[in-house]
């Protein structure tokens, strides 16, 4: 499942929907707003998304993870809008028969999101607002 939303999510609820009796391993990654970045205090962040393209890219990455690692299910939730320190930004949940492929698939999904899903963070700090640019 792929979700792009302004709303917060519950890790427990996501796992409850994801899990099946075939799974022996559930791996999750949760990205959270940190209170500092590159030597500056961060008050909050704003996340902008090119939603149609982000959804297609996330669907493609999910399919790749399912095929490459043979995991049972992958869910990605990514928020946008204004988020305060310690709020959830995004989560990945992977359900698999065994832990090795669950960890690998989760790592693959976050690495690909960082490369090719059109979502951008802006850090709101006491020194001004700064867009975060990823590696091209």
């Amino acid at each position, binding site marked *: 499942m792929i979700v792009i939303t302004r709303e917060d999510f519950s890790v427990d609820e996501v796992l409850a929907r994801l899990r099946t009796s075939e799974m022996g391993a559930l791996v999750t990654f949760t990205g959270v707003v940190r209170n500092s970045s590159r030597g500056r205090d961060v008050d909050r962040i704003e996340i902008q998304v090119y939603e149609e393209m982000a959804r297609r890219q996330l669907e493609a990455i999910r399919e790749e993870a399912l095929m490459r690692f043979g995991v049972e299910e992958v869910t990605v939730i990514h928020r946008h809008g204004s988020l305060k320190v310690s709020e959830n930004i995004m989560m990945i949940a992977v359900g698999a028969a065994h832990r090795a492929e669950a960890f690998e698939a989760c790592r693959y999904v976050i690495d690909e999101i960082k490369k090719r899903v*059109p979502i*951008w963070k802006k850090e709101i700090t006491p020194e001004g607002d700064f867009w975060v640019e*990823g590696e091209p």
Partner: protein
Amino acid sequence: MRIKVRYFASVREMIGLSEEEMAVPADSTIASLIERLKDSNEPLRHMRNLLVAVNGEFADAEHGLGEGDVVALFPPVSGG
């Protein structure tokens, strides 16, 4: 022909618009569109890494544009 150009993140702030419709020559490519935008938007000339998508897929400079295409311009992504 007419295309739609969408801008995101720092590019949106440079241009001052989230999107615009534009009439471009029939043989336009991504490269020719970007040159034209740089002529009218000076800050865009200093952007080192400008990424481009056409109709929701990443595209390179040689990509030819067609009637009704939606072109998106944005900096390297920073989600996750």
